C-alpha cells in the first residue's frame, strides 16, 4: 500500500510493505489523515487557534495536554542536547523575516535574538509560561516528532510492522520483509541529482539545507535556518527517532567538525554533510551502512 497526501505544508507518503486487506488499508489511510490533521491544528504556528499560537499570543497555557507538555519538554531538552545550537524559541525571528502564517515573506522589522529556553520556557503539568519576547516555533523538530508518533501508532495500534513514513523528507522506516530500506540523498542545489544513498532499518532520517525554503525580499535573501554562519550546504542524519534526526540535521549545519564529532558520540548519530562547491560528501563510517 502506498498513500500520499498534503499536510503541514509538504507532501507525505505512507508506504506499507506487508499485505493488508482493503478494509485495513482504508482504516489506516483515514487514521493517518485524521491524526496528522489534528496534530497540525494543535501545534502549527500558522494555525491561529493552535496551542503554539495560543502560547505565543497569551504567553501562558493553563492545563495543557500531556502531549503538549511532552512535546515542549522534548524541544527544550534539544537546546541542551545540542549545546544550544538547536533553539525552539525562534518563531519571532522567522515571523520578522516574513515566514509567517500568511507567507508574506515581507520583513516586518528588526528581529530580536533567539529566546533562551532554559529561562524563558517554563513547563509544568498544569501551566506553561513563556517569558521574554521570543516566540515558539516547532518547525525544527515538529514534523519529525509527528512521524515518530505515527510510527508508534502504526506499530502498536494497527499492528503494522513493515512501513516507511516520509513527511516531506523526514522519515521513519522499519523494514521491508526484514530488509533495510534504501533511500536516496538529493543534491541540495540540483533537484533530481543523487549524491548517494543509504539504508534505514528501524530508525529515523532527516535532512536540512539552507538552500531549501529560501525567499527574498527588500532586506535580502532569507532561509528558515536561523544562524549567522553555516558549515555545510546540506546535512543528513540517521538517528533512533525522526525527531532527533530532524532537530540535529538543522543543528549540525551550525556546528564545526569538533562539535559534530561530540554530537555523534553523545547522541549516537550517523551524519553526512555535503559541500556543494567542492561536491564533497563527508560522512561518519556508520552512515552508509
Amino acid at each position, binding site marked *: 500500500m502506498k498513500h500520499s497526501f498534503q499536510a503541514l505544508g509538504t507532501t507525505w507518503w505512507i508506504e506499507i510493505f506487508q499485505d493488508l486487506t482493503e478494509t485495513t488499508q482504508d482504516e489506516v489511510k483515514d487514521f493517518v489523515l485524521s491524526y496528522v490533521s489534528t496534530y497540525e491544528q494543535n501545534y502549527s504556528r500558522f494555525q491561529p487557534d493552535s496551542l503554539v499560537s495560543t502560547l505565543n499570543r497569551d504567553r501562558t497555557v493553563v492545563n495543557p495536554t500531556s502531549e503538549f507538555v511532552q512535546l515542549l519538554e522534548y524541544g527544550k531538552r534539544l537546546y541542551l542536547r545540542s549545546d544550544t545550537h538547536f533553539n525552539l524559541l525562534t518563531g519571532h525571528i522567522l515571523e520578522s523575516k516574513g515566514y509567517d502564517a500568511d507567507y508574506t515573506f515581507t520583513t516586518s522589522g528588526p528581529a530580536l535574538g533567539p529566546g533562551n529556553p532554559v529561562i524563558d520556557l517554563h513547563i509544568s503539568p498544569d501551566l506553561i509560561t513563556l517569558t521574554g519576547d521570543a516566540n515558539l516555533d516547532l518547525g525544527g523538530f515538529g514534523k519529525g516528532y509527528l512521524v515518530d508518533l505515527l510510527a508508534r501508532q502504526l506499530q502498536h495500534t494497527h499492528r503494522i510492522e513493515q512501513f516507511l513514513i*516520509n513527511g516531506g523528507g523526514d522519515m521513519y522506516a522499519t523494514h521491508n520483509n526484514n530488509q533495510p530500506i534504501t533511500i536516496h540523498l538529493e*543534491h541540495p542545489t540540483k*533537484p533530481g541529482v543523487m549524491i548517494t544513498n543509504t539504508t534505514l532499518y528501524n530508525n529515523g532520517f532527516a535532512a536540512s539545507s539552507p538552500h531549501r525554503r529560501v525567499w527574498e525580499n527588500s532586506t535580502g535573501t532569507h532561509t528558515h535556518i536561523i544562524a549567522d554562519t553555516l558549515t555545510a550546504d546540506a546535512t543528513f542524519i540517521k538517528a533512533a527517532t525522526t525527531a532527533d534526526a530532524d532537530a540535529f540535521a538543522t543543528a549540525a549545519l551550525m556546528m564545526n567538525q569538533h562539535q559534530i564529532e561530540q554530537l555523534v558520540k553523545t547522541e549516537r548519530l550517523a551524519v553526512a554533510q555535503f559541500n556543494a562547491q567542492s561536491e564533497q560528501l563527508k560522512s561518519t563510517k556508520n552512515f552508509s*551502512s
Partner: protein
Amino acid sequence: MPYIIAFVIIIVAAGALLLFRQPVEVPAEPVAAEIAEVSAEEATGFPEGFTPPTEQPPAASPSTEPAALETDTVIEVETTEEVVLEVSTETTTENRTFVAEASYFTPRRTEHDLIITLELEGETIVASNITYDGGPAITPAHSGFDGAYSAEIIGQNINEIDLSRVGGASLTSVAFNEAVADIRAQL
C-alpha cells in the same frame, strides 16, 4: 631405483593436487550490494530530497567518470566501533560542576577574590554561584553584578560567554570572564 620411484610418486602427487585443488574462494559481495534497493519506480514521487536519481552523481573532477562515491571522505569520529543505530533516545549526559577562582584590584588597590561555580550540561550553563571575598555580595559593584549576571549566562553556551559591565561592574565582569576561561580550559 628407490629414488626414481619416490621421484615419480612425488610428481604424480603434485599433479593430483593441482588437478583436484578447490577453486579459490570468491570474495563475498559487499554488504551494501546485497541490500535490496527500492526500485526507481517505487521511489518515484518521493518529495524533496529523496527523489530517485535522474542523473548520474556529480563528478568531483573534470573527469567524465561519475565520481561522487569515490570522492566521499569519512569523518573519523568513530575510532573503535560502529555506532548501533537502534539505541534509546535517553541520553546519559550528566551535569558537571566546575569551580574557578579569580581576583582583581580596584583602583584603590583593594583586592577582591571571587570563587565561581558553574554547573554545565554539555556546554550549556544551567546553574551558577559566586562567593565574593568568601561570602555573599556586599559591595555595590558585587551586588549589582550578582543581581544581573545570571540572566546573561544561564542557558548560554560557555564558549559564548563574554560579559561586559554587567550590573555596572566592569572589573567584576572581567574577573568573571577569566574564571569562565579557566573553566573552559577544564572541559
